[in-house]
Each structure stands twice: as structure tokens, then as C-alpha cells.
């Protein structure tokens, strides 16, 4: 891994973040019926008699990070600088800083998604590998059918089913929330309660997610098993253990990594619906709320954080992928 390559990746990530900020700015400022005009109209309606124009503008600036009477480029620069300093404005509805709200909910979403991804991949890889080894058997056939079926079921359909049975019919799990009230934060009971509440959302993601991974793992392994270097390794008398772990597993798992990148983005998008279904107040929940209440600062802050999370995820995965797979080590276009 060389420095130039690293610089390039960092540059690429910054570029994406910058485009998001610019896009958000353009949305606020240029859209007809934009948040700015809307907010001014509202303020005017409410306080028109008591507030001066300058005061209204000050309010708008406070909430949206925009100074409506400045020239456009100056507004853009200010907005850009504010955002890069971590000032995302104030929530229009709750009146608190957007950053504070986000810091409160983001970890919960990350918790859900990372556990779900971990399970998806562990189950998917193990199942896929066993399917490949037993290629053509009844087990292979059954698992392939089940996986294919599960992949085609949207997770929210599954989520509704889970809620219907486990919550309403059998009353095994809570219907919503992140933890039971009245527990001391940090205590063992608290963590148990957190996991208990997270179970259903995670299960709905895992059940509908591992199938795709298992299927690609199966295909990769079969392809690897049939490759010349496996035959070469057998002729050279290497042990089966070494062949399966150093040759088959490694070469079959690596391509899945790219799938992981897409998965991260996909799951953040899915979080909006998932958290709504389970009344789980994570970042997706907040985003939908903000949209419903037209809480523009919050909405845009959330949008930006999700983008950054995806960018960082991709960046990290990219970085480690280079370490794992020598073929793309320097990012050369070979």
C-alpha cells in the first residue's frame, strides 16, 4: 500500500462528502418553496408584527446555517465552513442542535446494523462453504432453494411477520423501544434489555440477508475448487486442511468483501423503514420523523451523517481489502 494510493482514497472520500454538503446547500437554497422561504414565511406570519426583517434573517441563519441576504457564494462558503466545523444548525422542531440529536441516535443504528452484518456474513459464509463442498447433494439443493427464497423476501415483510407472531400473538418480545425504562445505564440488566429489544430488528435483517451471501460464497467456492491452483496444490501434496483454509476459503471469501461495501449503504437506507416498524429510535427513525415534520435542518444533517457513515465504511473496507487481497494492493487498474 503506498501513500499515493491512500491519498487518492482519502481525496475520493472527501469529494463525496463535499458533494453531499453542496447538494444539501443547493436543496435548501435553490429549491422553489425551499426551507428558507418557508421558514421566513412562517416566522413572518407568527411574529411579523414584532420582528424586523434582520431579526428574521438571524433566526433563519441560526436554524439553517444560511444568511439569506448575503450573496450566494458567501452563503455557500459560510455553510461549508460551518458544516466542516460540525455545526449542522438547530432542529427546527425540537430546538436543540442537530449534532446533539444525531450523537444520541447514531450509535443505536450502528449497533443494530453491525450485529446484523456480522451474523449475515458468518452464517452466509459457513453455509455457502458447506453447500459448495456438498455440491449436488440434497442438502445443497435445499439450502440453495431456501436461500434463494429468503433473498427475494423484503426484510420489512419479514419484520411485520415477526412482530405479528412474536409480539402480538405470543408476546415474547417488546413491540418497540431500545431498552426498558428504569434500568441503570451500564448495568448488566440494562445491556440485556438492549439486546432483548434489538433482537427482532436484527433477526429480520439477518434472515433476509444471509441467503445472498451464502449463494455467492457457494458460487465462489465452487469456482475456486475447480481452479488450476487447487489442482496444483493437491499434486504438490499439501494437506487438505491447508488447501481448504489457505487456498479455497481465502480466495472465495475475498470477493464477498465488495458485497459488504454495497451492503453498508443498503442497510443504512433500509434503517429508515426498519426502525419505523420497530419504533426503534435510531438515525433512520429520526430521518423519517424530520421529513414528516419538515424539520429541514435535522433532515439534512441526518442525510449528511448517513452519507458520511457510508463513505467511511467504504473507505475502511477498501483500506483493509488492499491488505487482504494482494491483487488490488496498490489500486492499480490492472
Amino acid at each position, binding site marked *: 500500500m503506498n501513500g*499515493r494510493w491512500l*491519498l*487518492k482514497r482519502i*481525496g*475520493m472520500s472527501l*469529494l463525496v462528502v463535499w458533494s453531499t454538503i453542496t447538494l444539501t446547500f443547493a436543496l435548501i437554497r435553490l429549491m422553489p418553496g425551499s426551507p428558507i422561504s418557508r421558514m421566513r414565511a412562517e416566522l413572518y406570519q407568527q411574529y411579523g408584527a414584532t420582528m424586523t426583517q434582520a431579526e428574521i434573517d438571524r433566526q433563519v441563519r441560526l436554524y439553517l446555517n444560511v444568511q439569506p441576504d448575503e450573496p450566494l457564494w458567501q452563503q455557500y462558503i459560510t455553510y461549508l465552513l460551518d458544516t466542516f466545523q460540525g455545526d449542522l444548525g438547530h432542529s427546527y422542531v425540537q430546538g436543540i442542535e442537530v449534532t446533539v440529536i444525531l450523537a444520541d441516535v447514531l450509535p443505536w443504528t450502528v449497533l443494530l446494523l453491525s450485529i446484523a452484518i456480522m451474523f449475515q456474513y458468518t452464517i452466509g459464509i459457513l453455509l455457502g462453504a458447506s453447500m459448495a463442498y456438498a455440491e449436488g447433494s440434497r442438502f445443497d439443493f435445499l439450502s440453495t432453494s431456501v436461500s434463494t427464497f429468503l433473498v427475494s423476501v423484503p426484510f420489512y415483510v419479514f419484520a411485520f411477520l415477526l412482530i405479528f407472531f412474536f409480539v402480538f400473538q405470543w408476546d415474547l418480545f417488546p413491540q418497540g423501544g431500545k431498552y426498558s425504562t428504569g434500568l441503570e445505564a451500564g448495568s448488566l440488566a440494562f445491556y440485556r434489555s438492549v439486546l432483548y429489544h434489538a433482537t427482532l430488528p436484527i433477526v429480520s435483517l439477518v434472515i433476509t440477508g444471509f441467503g445472498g451471501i451464502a449463494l455467492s460464497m457457494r458460487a465462489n467456492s465452487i469456482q475456486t475448487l475447480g*481452479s*488450476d*491452483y487447487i*489442482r*496444483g*496444490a493437491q*499434486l*504438490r*501434496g*499439501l*494437506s487438505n486442511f*491447508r488447501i481448504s483454509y*489457505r*487456498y479455497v476459503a*481465502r*480466495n472465495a471469501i*475475498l470477493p464477498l468483501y465488495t458485497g459488504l461495501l454495497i451492503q453498508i449503504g443498503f442497510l443504512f437506507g433500509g434503517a429508515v423503514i426498519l426502525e419505523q416498524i420497530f419504533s426503534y429510535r435510531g438515525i433512520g427513525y429520526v430521518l423519517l420523523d424530520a421529513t414528516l415534520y419538515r424539520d429541514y435542518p435535522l433532515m439534512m444533517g441526518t442525510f449528511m451523517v448517513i452519507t458520511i457513515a457510508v463513505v467511511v465504511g467504504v473507505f475502511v473496507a477498501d483500506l483493509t481489502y488492499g491488505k*487482504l*487481497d*494482494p*491483487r488490488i*494492493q496498490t489500486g*492499480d*487498474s*490492472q
Partner: protein
Amino acid sequence: MSQQVVAQENILELRDVTVSFGMNRGVSKVLDDVSIDIHRGEILGVVGESGSGKSMLASALLDAVVDPGTVDGEVSYRTDSGETVDILDLEDEELRQLRWEEIAMVFQGAMSFFNPTMKIRGHFLETLKAHDQDVDEGMEHARELLTDLHLEPDRVFDTFPHELSGGMKQRALIALSLILEPNVLVMDEPTAALDLLMQRSILTLLDDLQEKYDLTIVFITHDLPLVKDLCDRIAVMYAFDVMEVFPAGDLSNSTHPYTRSLLNAVPNLTTSLDELRSIEGSAPDPVDIPSGCSYHPRCPLSTPECEQEDPPLEEIAPDQEVACWHHEKVDEELPLALETSDGGSAEVYEGNQSDEPVVVMDDIEVHFETDDGGLLSLFDDPEIVRAVDGVDLEIYENDVVAIVGESGCGKTTFGKTAVGLQEPTGGSVRYRGQDIWETKRGEGTGDRSYDEIRRALQIIHQDPGSSLNPNRKVSSILQVPMKSWQSDLDVEDRKARLLAMLEAAGMSPPEDYADRYPHQLSGGEKQRVALIRALLMNPDLILADEAVSALDVSMRVDMMDLMLTLQDLFDTSYLFISHNLTNARYLAGRAGGRIAVMYLGEIIEIGPAEEIVQNPQHPYTQALHWSTTDLDSNSEGEADESPIRAIDVPDPIDPPSGCRFHPRCPEAREVCATEKPSLDSGTDHCTACFREYSEDHPYWDSEPLGEETIGAHVGGESS
């Protein structure tokens, strides 16, 4: 070459070895009752076309036939201590030890033999450990082997497989196969994917290794001329059985009709061009092998007896066995073309090219940035690959120009530039006086549109399969060009026209072929369809990029003949790209065309085809010539010394100073490292080398280059 083997003791004996696969269509015998002895210390060449069962023979030697194939018969191996073991009877663990320790194998697809995610060192280490060898000692041996193969051990150990060039990978693999000091090395088409020059260099090295480590080598290949000098004996396979075995020294020893026909079908540098004949018919299907002699449907000497009874392999002279009822008649009926030809003064067709150039290329440069570009190359300091560096060429009407060079010399990029598929970064490409790229940008002055120019310049690829739409029948593939360029033809006319074309291309009955999908065609047939499609656009120039390289030897001549016949019919020119001087000579020679030799982005010699072949001037062209074995050189043994000093091509990112060939040139002197020779013009035959300059050129007073000046530039891959 060890003809002086103490006792002609056999190290391996095969008796009635059969490999069969059960298939729905019946049992498929891909090796049919083969019996052959392999002498200790010899190099045995096993020659056959694809689908002759030669790869199965290799696998059977190690009992390594892939499932669900089964091997029957006896493969006896005699160890150093004189014991005999039957390889097919061994327990798993015994077999595991025998492989690589006694018999090692380099099989086809060697390019992907290495684990892509493990460094080369790891492959050596794990092999040593798996066989409980002393690792330090073993690695020392590995270093020696790598050095023997002209590789730098430390550098190679620390690379991943994809970082090595094809030739380096192949040599690293040979070292890996010898790491446990086996007695026998089985090699299945080990060099097929490499350039000829690299193939020959590797064979020379193999010859040395064989002597140094006292190896027995079984070398399996489709290319008889290539291995002729390397081998002691040659076994020819056809239809899953051995047809004959003969001493390799003299090809006229061969007495089987198939071998004769095979030899007469191989284009080479000495046989008169008119005597090349391709073999009629095709090799049999493993499920349905003809009764009697399996070659009788194609054999010109076949008699009723041949159809009834299968001739056994019988000894007719020491070291020589043949399976043919009429082998005595072979010399009379099927003489070797190279013996009857009058010393290679081939008749040169007067080319009917006009003086009017179709495409003129002036000082073409194509420089690539290794970076994939985009906004973020801001952060990079891109490396520049000089794929083509200042080349001039004029192509006339009805012309044939063959570009020859090793892979990575820029010949494909140059070809694409000629037909307007690649924009040059410097210089100009003009079609009938009109600059192609200016026209594309709408700045040109000519009256032709860009589309018209694109139509006039066509291309056929090396792999025809990828350029034909797999979901369309041949007839609809061929109608596309006619619909767009000859819209005045109605359906019936188009149909009639394409049937006539298929017929002319030897694909009859044409109605049958028109109805097929690409996957129902053989490689050669696909290539013909691609050629017809290109011709139906009525082009002035066709770029044929390695268009025959992927075909079996006997089909190459066919394809090139077709190209020439159709050239007459359609009035087109060819720009033929090949790494093989023989193919270039065949095509360009027959049309009275030219051969241009490229090296690291420059043309270093150009002239009339026969001139270049018979009288090469540039040391590099001479090396290419050396790599193309002459069939008639009866020199036994010693694959003669390689005429180049370094095997690998230097990195095109940082080409050598002065004459770009100087790190490998056997004639290089000090001047060559600093000054650059230019292509002397004025005559038909131009050469970019100081040796072609007058006597008072400083070259002649300059000191020969020492070894130490060379090392600096050698090393093929970018680091």
C-alpha cells in the same frame, strides 16, 4: 541431450493404459490402450492436436486424472534403487509422496497454477513442509533453481503471482516443480501461452536443467517443430492413442501418414509456400472412434484393410515404432515438403498493390497513463507507458503488412491506431488523405464522414467467440452489415449473398451453417464468420489481430489461405498482427507484402516479407528468426544457444536509453547505450541498427557492452 544414456533403462512403462469417462452418449475413451516406454534421462516429446488425448496421458502418469474419469492398465515406475512400483496401485499416502518427490508435473494453464493471494516464497515453503524436507536446504536449492532460470531469487520470492510476467511465472513454476529433486518432470503445453522467443528461451534453459539435474522429461505439446531440437524421441498421438514414436533428430524418420501430413501443414521459414497442405477432415469424437485404424477416414493411403483392422504399434528400427499397415509407402506417397522443396526460394506473388496509400500514419505516438484517470489523478504523478513511440507506416490498396513482435511491444495498440480505434497522443492517421481524428472532431477538410471511414477500416480479433453475438444465428450476424451498407439489397439477395460467402469460405452446406449459433461452430469456423462479417462491410483495410494464433496448427494455413482468396475478391488490405514470424511470412509472403518488426513501441526493421525472413538484419529480428525453428535443420540435439543476452523484455514505462534493444542485444556496444539508431529510409528494407550504418560510424570503434551495464534495465514487470 543425453543420447549416451548408460543403459536404455526404462524409468516409466505404460501398458494398455485406458482413461474413460462415462457420459450420456456412451463411454468416452480419452486414452485408448496406450503402451509406451519412457527411458531414463531422455526428453520425450508427446505431440498431438487438441483433443488427441495427450493431456490425459500426462495426468495418467501421476494417476491424477480428474473425477469422474477412471484409469485402467499399468503404469510402472522404476525407482533409483531399482524397485518397480505400479503407480495406479498405490495407496493415497504413497501416491502423495511419489508425486513431486519422484514425478513432478507442470500442467496446462500454468499461468494460474499459483495461489493468487500468496507470495511465490509461500509456494516453495509449503511444498517443502508438506514433504517433510529441510526448509533451509530446500530454499537454498530453490534459489539455485531460480538463478538457473535467469530469475533473481530474492525479488521473485517476494512477489505475488500476478506481478510476474508470463515468462517469469512459467520459469518460477518450473523451479517449483524441481524443488524436491524429482526424477521425472511431466510438462503439459508448458509454454503454449508465451511468445515464441520466450518459448525458445525456456526450452534452452530446460535443456540445461535436464543435464544438470539428470532429469527425465516428458514434454507434451501441439507444436512439433518447437520441441524437435529439445527432444530425444517424439511420440505422435492421434485419436487418443500413440501413432508412432521416432528419434527426434531427423524428421524424415517419421513414417506415419498422419505425422507427415501434420508436418506438411506447418508453416515454417524454409518450406516453399506452395507446398503447405492442410489436413482434410477433423479428429474423431472420443465416443465414436472409427473402427480399424482410427486415422483411416482422413488418410490418403487408406485401404480396405485399414478400415477392418487396427494396426498395432510395431518396432521397425531401434527407438522407432509405428502403427500403420503401409508405413513403407509413406516416403513415396507422402514425402516431407521440406525435403522436396528447392531450398526455400519461395515463389513470391507479385502483389498488386497500387501506389495510392489507403492509410498513412505519420510519427504515431500512443502514450498511456497507468492511472485510470478521472478527477483524482490530481493526486497522482502518473507513470507513462510508451506503447507506441514515433512510428511511420503507409498501407496501400491490396497491401498486406504483418507486424511482428513480442507481447507488450505495442503492436496491438499500433494496429488499433491504424484502423481508428485508438486515438494517438501524437502524430496523425490519415485515411485517403483525410485525418481520421480531425474528421471525428468535425474539424477535417475531407468530404468523407467519420462513419464512412469507420466502415472502411475493420477488425477481426484473436478470440472470435467474444465478438460474435451468442444469441444470434450466423445468418443474422452476417446480415447486419449488409442491412446498413447495402440497403438496396432485398431479403432474398442478402440471403443468396451470404450463402455464397459461406460456401466460398469452405463452410458447406452453407444453409446448414447459416442456421447455426456461434457455439455450434469450431474455433476456425467462428474466425471465418468474423472474417466474412468484416468483409461484408466492404472495407479497405482489415486489422487481423493474432487472428490465427488460437487455431490448431493445421487450421492456420486454411484460415490464411481464405484471407488471401477473399482479398482478391474484395480488394482489401490486411494489417496482420502476430507474434509468430512464420505466420507473418505466410500471409505477407504470398501477397507480396511487407513485414514490420516492432520492439518496445518502435519499428526496428521493415521490408518485403521474404527479405525479412531470409535476410534479417536487425539482431532482434535475427533472434525472432532463431526462435522459429527450421524444420529441416538436422542438427541433432543441442537446442543451440540463445542469441539474446537477457530473456525478459524491459519495462515500457522506463525503456532503455539509446537503442532500446541494447540490454538484450548480443552485438551491443557502448554507443548503443547512449545513442539511438534511426530507421534508415530510402530503400525497401530498413533497419534501425548501427550495424547497418557506414563503416565510419562510431559504433565500430566502440567497446562491446559488459555484463554490468546490462543488469540495470532488465526485469519485465513494473514494480
